[in-house]
């Protein structure tokens, strides 16, 4: 496996995006260093997926710019792979073929590896329609990982997974990232997940970045590390405080 990626930094300046009347992103400023692991959190509908789609070059911005490796992004971002929130497996391709999508023939053997890593090697010849929700998600994850991209964009990749599988997959992600040092942007609704894997956690609120929190914990991350829960409190506090009157819940969480 290749180990060192070349520079894959992303510079986002004044990024705005509206759908019709509704402004979703209202001026995002964000620099992501090459090989950095950034997690994005925020309320449902706050524009996390939209930001990821813009970075992937799937949609044009209304204002502002995205630079990848110093180059203005226009059209598809060829250095990136995105794992979509809704999986998007090709229903007419068997699991293994879905993982192979877009791979050069010479690398097709890697697909089997990736499938093994997400624990689905015995399902390689099934149609996607026969998989459970979490299994589909893992196939999509395997597909994104096998491409060995310079920039990996993950939109809630583990949202449908149980605690155990989720931890396994987080470990898998972290170890692959440590090996290959790709630049990674992870959208997640799970703050614990964000803190346990990312170098930096970003909170989107009202279309702008309202929190930009570096996580300075040693790796491999220990959830028992005293600072871990402080980070979580900090971020959760910001999320829950600002936009909700349910202080009691926040307090509960902060106290725990």
């Amino acid at each position, binding site marked *: 496996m290749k180990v060192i990626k070349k520079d894959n930094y992303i510079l986002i300046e004044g990024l705005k995006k509206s759908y019709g009347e509704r402004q979703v992103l209202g001026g995002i400023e964000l620099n992501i260093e090459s090989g950095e692991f950034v997690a994005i959190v925020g309320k449902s509908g706050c524009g996390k997926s939209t930001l990821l789609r813009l970075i*992937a070059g*799937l949609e044009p911005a209304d204002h502002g710019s995205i630079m990848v490796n110093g180059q203005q992004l226009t059209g*598809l971002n*060829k250095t*990136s*792979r*995105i794992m*979509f929130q*809704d999986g*998007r497996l*090709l*229903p*007419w*391709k068997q699991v293994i073929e879905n993982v192979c*999508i*877009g791979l050069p023939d010479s690398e097709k053997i890697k697909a089997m590896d990736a499938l093994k890593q997400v624990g689905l090697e015995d399902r390689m010849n099934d*149609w996607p*329609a026969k998989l459970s929700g979490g299994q589909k998600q893992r196939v999509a994850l395997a*597909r994104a990982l096998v*491409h060995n991209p310079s920039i990996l964009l993950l939109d809630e990749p583990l949202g449908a997974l149980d605690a155990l599988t989720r931890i396994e997959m987080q470990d898998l992600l972290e170890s692959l990232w440590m090996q290959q040092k790709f630049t990674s942007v992870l959208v997640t609704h799970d703050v614990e997940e964000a803190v346990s894997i990312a170098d930096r956690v970003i909170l989107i609120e009202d279309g702008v970045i309202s929190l930009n929190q570096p996580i300075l914990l040693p790796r491999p991350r220990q959830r028992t590390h005293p600072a871990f829960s402080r980070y979580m409190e900090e971020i959760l506090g910001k999320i829950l405080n600002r936009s909700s009157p349910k202080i009691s819940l926040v307090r509960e969480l902060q106290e725990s």
Partner: protein
Amino acid sequence: MKILTKETAKKFIPWFLPFTLLLGWQLLAWTGAIPERILPAPSKVVIAAIDLFSTGELLSNVSISLGRALAGFLIGGIIGFVFGLLNGIFRITDLLFDTSIQMLRNIPHLALIPLVILWFGIGETSKIFLVALGVLFPIYINTYHGVKNVDKGLVEMGKVYGLKGTSLFFNVILPGAMSSILVGIRFSLGVMWLTLIVSETISAHSGIGYMAMNAREFMQMDVIVMSILLYALFGKLSDVIARYFEDRLLRWNA
């Protein structure tokens, strides 16, 4: 045992209606309710068929027609398919060609014959041309519809994962449009035979369309009815062929 009966039922039920009709017709003919001269009994039709078969006439008519049909099907099918794809994928060809094709499709073959003779003469070319023209549209319209309706999300996914051009086409667009394309093929396999009856009025002396029209001219009701039944069988045959491909190509959808 039960599965066996269910399977056999599945095989036989579809033929229930055609056979009941045939039987009723035969009975009516026997009782004399339908005058023989006007609508010959199925038994007479069978005799006519055996007759034509034993002289080799039937087989040669069918095989000559089959040649024309297949040639036309291939040409028209490919053209319709290609335009359906192009117009389904590219905005510009869509704007350029769709209207023209929608207009062309509505021109009756019978009215076109004078022009076809002018352009292609009275030989095989004109006959094949007409079949191709007839086959073109069902395939065009269904391919177009199929391509337009491929899940945009999947196309996007394909592009993100580095597919483009032919690989995007073969991995995403074609399989996504396949079920609709097969409807077009099923339809046009029928049209392929149908058009022959018009194209074989152009100075033909063989072919199933010629046989039918000739029989109509001289009121050979047994041959007319036989041709009709033959056409019907070909209709079923095209269906079987289309279904075979559906079963193979749409396995994932089962």
